[in-house]
């Protein structure tokens, strides 16, 4: 087996395995920590796809930001004295059936569709190109993104603070 193939399967197994832990684990702490494996694995997939900048962003924002936020939320919404931090699930069988049918359908579609092919597959540093695109073609979405982030920041603070009643 070629090295790149082996690396792909290794990263894919880590990603899917920890995603399965997120989906099936009985303990929410385990679920939250398994999310780390999934996010790191997806970053590895980006590296394999030649998207170096996106991989760095994935590590910084998902692993460094969102995961820490989720862990904080888990800790804040469960009493530490509760030994059993449960993660109940309902409707497992119908859920599994729906998801299995959907997966079969998706895989069938992926196999049968003749996807467009690029003229050549290149592995070059992408950050300079992405920076150019952000300040030229995607300037308006870029500016809107900063507004959205500001709104989310203020909204999160307003929602999470304790209301002081007179």
């Amino acid at each position, binding site marked *: 087996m070629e090295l790149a193939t082996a690396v792909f399967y290794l990263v894919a197994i880590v990603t899917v395995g920890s995603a399965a832990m*997120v989906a099936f684990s009985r303990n929410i702490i385990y679920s939250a920590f398994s999310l780390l494996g999934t996010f790191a694995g997806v970053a590895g997939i980006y590296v394999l796809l030649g998207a170096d900048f996106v991989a760095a962003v994935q590590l910084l924002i998902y692993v460094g930001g969102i995961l820490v936020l989720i862990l904080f939320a888990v800790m804040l919404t469960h009493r530490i004295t509760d030994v059993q931090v449960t993660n109940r699930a309902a409707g497992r069988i119908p859920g599994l059936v729906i998801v299995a049918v959907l997966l079969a359908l998706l895989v069938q579609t992926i196999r049968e569709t003749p996807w467009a092919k690029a003229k050549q597959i290149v592995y070059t540093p992408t950050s300079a190109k992405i920076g150019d695109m952000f300040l030229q073609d995607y300037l308006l979405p870029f500016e809107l993104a900063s507004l959205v982030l500001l709104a989310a920041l203020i909204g999160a603070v307003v929602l999470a603070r304790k209301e002081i009643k007179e």
Partner: protein
Amino acid sequence: MEIGLNHYLTLGAILFCLGLYTVLTRRNAISVLMGVELILNSANINYVAFAHYSSGGVDGQIYAIFVIMLAAAEAAVGLAIVLAIFQLFHTIDVSAMETLRE
């Protein structure tokens, strides 16, 4: 067999289905948010894979960065709502929240 577009798309589909399963079956609001993150990650894999194998440019990667940015905003607001709900109901079981006010 060489790794191609189909492998990455299949990986994205598997991640999407696991995320959907999490969203469908979990009763804990934070777990539901984790499922949403899985779904967003699977969409991102597809964007970057198509950018690499089908278009050859960086447009797909830019979409992926926007999705990551929106996921961060969604997580911040969503978890703030979860904390507010916990203060009000003292539980974050999504089936226990039946009223829109105190």
